[in-house]
């Protein structure tokens, strides 16, 4: 399977199954509409005749030979023979967990998928006892995995920060005896961050995710307090302080959401960069299409243009010798994860689970509160292995759209939760997010290809 596209004056060709990326001229671009394996020893006359209206005959023959040679090298029209690996990581150990430490929030962000923090289940904080059981559960289910990831999530985790600290302490106390190493992440809206919390987070959390949408007017339109007031002026200085004090050995990023209200979101990315945040994630809102802020099909052309705009802005920043990392343009074309990992993306419900404040286990944070997807409970020790197997089997070959999609080894089958919520089944691709994903990938592949060309030359 191949995918070719024109972007910013370049013709890009991706060979899906090998991961080969090529920059091609117009002739190759047009020829690829006319040829596919099996190939002949030399360019068939029918193709020469067809293309010679525009191109030189000798060049056409030459180009054909180049295509054939890449095919023989197996980096063009490579075969799709990964399906047999789709079963290899079935019944994997669980290695990552999202702890819903607080189903409560001090903001009322209008687009919140967690229904402003309580997941429609009522406001509730996780107890230390439940947190400890969660750590025990993860250790027990993690088999031979040494590195275990725990993400403190909410609602807003700082509303239950003492318990966060005690859970970390408990997990650390079990590390050596269980031969595990915990990596903690916390996601926060910043409102309650104190100097003590910042110090603690910078010491104990391997990663911290700071929620902010970008420009003040954009952030404050949707990220509001219960009284309707915006959060920007409170959080910005705190985030700056946290980053300034954070060691280089630890990860962090700011993450925002764009909606129909700021389809010019490249300005928000740049705003965050100008404020000193160079690790940036800004993502489309996923919401009921009836909501006024929801992104719909009609917005796609505008969004595609905006990603191109963003690509230009980021390229300029880098040309000026500065560092910026926009998460969704990050791509490794040489040393990425193995093909097997790429079949199954997030691993939710299989390698990754979420724990609700009451100790219920779900496939991931977005399934929390959806009764049909409850996997068990820490308190009665129940765990539905059958449901775990269902998720283990949700790979790109069991998702009909993904199977034939050129982006499958980059996207890995999208988000199961969004598929379920917006397309009715974890196996049905959610088209809107696919379109956005594919556009981002096209930009990311070109940007990476151009940098690699630059370094090579």
């Amino acid at each position: 399977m191949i995918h070719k596209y024109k972007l910013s004056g370049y013709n890009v060709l991706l060979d899906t199954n090998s991961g080969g990326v090529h920059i091609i001229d117009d002739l190759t671009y047009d020829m690829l509409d006319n040829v596919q394996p099996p190939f002949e020893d030399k360019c068939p006359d029918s193709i020469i005749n067809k293309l010679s209206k525009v191109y030189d005959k000798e060049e056409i023959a030459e180009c054909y030979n180049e295509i054939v040679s890449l095919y023989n090298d197996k980096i063009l029209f490579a075969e799709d023979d990964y399906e047999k690996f789709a079963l290899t990581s079935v019944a994997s150990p669980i290695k990552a967990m999202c702890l819903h430490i607080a189903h409560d929030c001090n903001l009322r962000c209008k687009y919140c998928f967690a229904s402003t923090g309580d997941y429609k289940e009522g406001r509730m904080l996780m107890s230390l006892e439940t947190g400890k059981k969660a750590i025990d559960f993860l250790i027990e289910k993690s088999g031979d995995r040494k590195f275990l990831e725990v993400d403190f999530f909410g609602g807003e985790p700082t509303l239950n920060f003492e318990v966060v600290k005690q859970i970390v302490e408990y997990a650390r106390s079990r590390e050596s005896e269980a031969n595990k190493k915990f990596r903690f992440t916390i996601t926060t809206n910043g409102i309650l961050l104190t100097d003590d919390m910042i110090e603690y987070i910078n010491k104990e959390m391997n990663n911290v995710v700071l929620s902010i949408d970008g420009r003040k007017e954009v952030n404050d339109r949707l990220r509001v307090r219960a009284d309707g007031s915006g959060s920007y002026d409170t959080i910005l200085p705190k985030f700056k302080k946290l980053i300034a004090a954070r060691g280089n050995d630890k990860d962090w990023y700011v993450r925002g959401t764009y909606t129909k209200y700021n389809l010019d979101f490249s300005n928000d990315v740049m705003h965050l960069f100008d404020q000193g945040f160079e690790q940036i994630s800004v993502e489309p809102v996923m919401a009921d299409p009836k909501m006024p802020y929801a992104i719909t099909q009609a917005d796609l052309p505008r969004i595609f243009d905006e990603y191109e705009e963003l690509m230009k802005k980021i390229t300029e920043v880098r040309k000026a010798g500065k560092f910026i990392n926009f998460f969704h343009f990050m791509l490794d074309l040489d040393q990425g994860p193995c093909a097997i990992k790429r079949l199954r993306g997030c691993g939710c419900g299989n390698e990754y689970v979420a724990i609700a404040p009451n100790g219920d286990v779900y496939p991931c944070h977005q399934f929390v509160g959806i009764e049909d997807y409850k996997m068990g409970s820490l308190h009665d020790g129940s765990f539905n292995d059958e449901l775990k197997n269902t998720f283990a089997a949700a790979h790109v070959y069991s998702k009909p759209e993904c199977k034939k999609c050129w982006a499958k080894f980059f996207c890995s089958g999208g988000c199961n939760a969004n598929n379920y919520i917006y397309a009715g089944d974890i196996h049905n691709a959610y088209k809107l997010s696919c379109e956005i994903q594919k556009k981002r990938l096209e930009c990311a592949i070109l940007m990476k290809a151009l940098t690699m060309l630059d370094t090579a030359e």
Partner: protein
Amino acid sequence: MKHIKTINKANLKKSAAKGGCGKCQASCQSACKTSCTVANQKCEREA
């Protein structure tokens, strides 16, 4: 080559042969969390 410039040393095939150890990070693909493309992750296989 004149018409085609190959950018990377494509390696998905090779990676499949020795891959699948499962040591790499979990990676949420959804907008509400990181939504990193998987393709950007590091392989953590110990050689």
